[in-house]
């Protein structure tokens, strides 16, 4: 009886280890950030675009209102792609668009806005990229839908037709 116990035990252990690794094989090994989150918006102080005025995040985002927080830069090509959707949101009275100009020069950003028109109600300036880190952003473009000072949706990459419709449904 004693002789049979060890092989059985060993086989069981190897089987468990095999099962764990086999399951692990099916997990994707690329990082997929979560997009459905209910997190409080971060608190920060930030410089206004083309202005030396320092704004507090508490004064920008008010309760019971929808905000679209969009991180953009003039050097970012996908930002041009999503621009038409931001212009559509501008016509919507239910939502206010806050732009965060990421690692950009005032001159280039101005040119970008003159060329494509300005969809933003307020533009903030993030010269060193640290404010974007506070938001948990990966790069540009990235968009956060905010309601009641909470992030209710996060779009990594440019806004497309699908995400545009999705946001429109939420803010209706």
């Amino acid at each position, binding site marked *: 009886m004693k002789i049979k116990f*060890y092989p059985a035990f*060993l086989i069981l252990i190897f089987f468990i280890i095999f099962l764990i690794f086999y399951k692990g094989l099916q997990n994707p090994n*690329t*990082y997929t950030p979560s997009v459905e989150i209910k997190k409080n918006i971060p608190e920060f102080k930030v410089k206004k675009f083309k202005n030396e005025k320092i704004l507090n995040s508490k004064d920008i985002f008010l309760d019971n209102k929808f905000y679209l927080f969009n991180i953009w830069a003039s050097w970012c090509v996908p930002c041009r792609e999503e621009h038409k959707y931001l212009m559509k949101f501008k016509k919507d009275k239910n939502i206010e668009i806050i732009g965060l100009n990421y*690692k950009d020069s005032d001159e280039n950003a101005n040119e970008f806005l003159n060329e494509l028109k300005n969809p933003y109600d307020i533009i903030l300036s993030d010269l060193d990229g640290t404010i*974007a*880190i*506070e938001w948990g952003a*990966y*790069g540009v473009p990235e968009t956060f839908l905010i309601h009641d000072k909470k992030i209710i949706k996060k779009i990594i990459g440019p806004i497309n037709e699908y995400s545009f419709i999705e946001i429109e449904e939420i803010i209706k």
Partner: protein
Amino acid sequence: MKLFKYLAIIFLIINISLANAENINLQNKITKNLRCLICQGQSIYDSDTEFANSLKLVVKQKLENGKSEDEIYSFFQEKYGEWILYDPKFNKNTYFLWLLPVLMFIIGGAIIFKLFIIKKK
């Protein structure tokens, strides 16, 4: 008296640079333990992307504001999730990861002990 003054100044300079070096060492240690999320396989320390450079700056600012190493890790974990840490913390998702080697060591040791040492006796 003059000599004393000079000595005091030299002592101060050495002290400041030492404190600075310590801070830089800690900063390097922290950034080596943070994963660059947009350039996989690299740490923040190794990477030179916009994302990594901003993260290095945030680590530096947090250290200057007197935040501890653990507080900085918790900050990034809250913002980006567990994945950003190369050295994951012990919690309900990772306990198996941490305990498996210990478990295997104990079971293996028990098998060796039973098979060889008790048999010899």
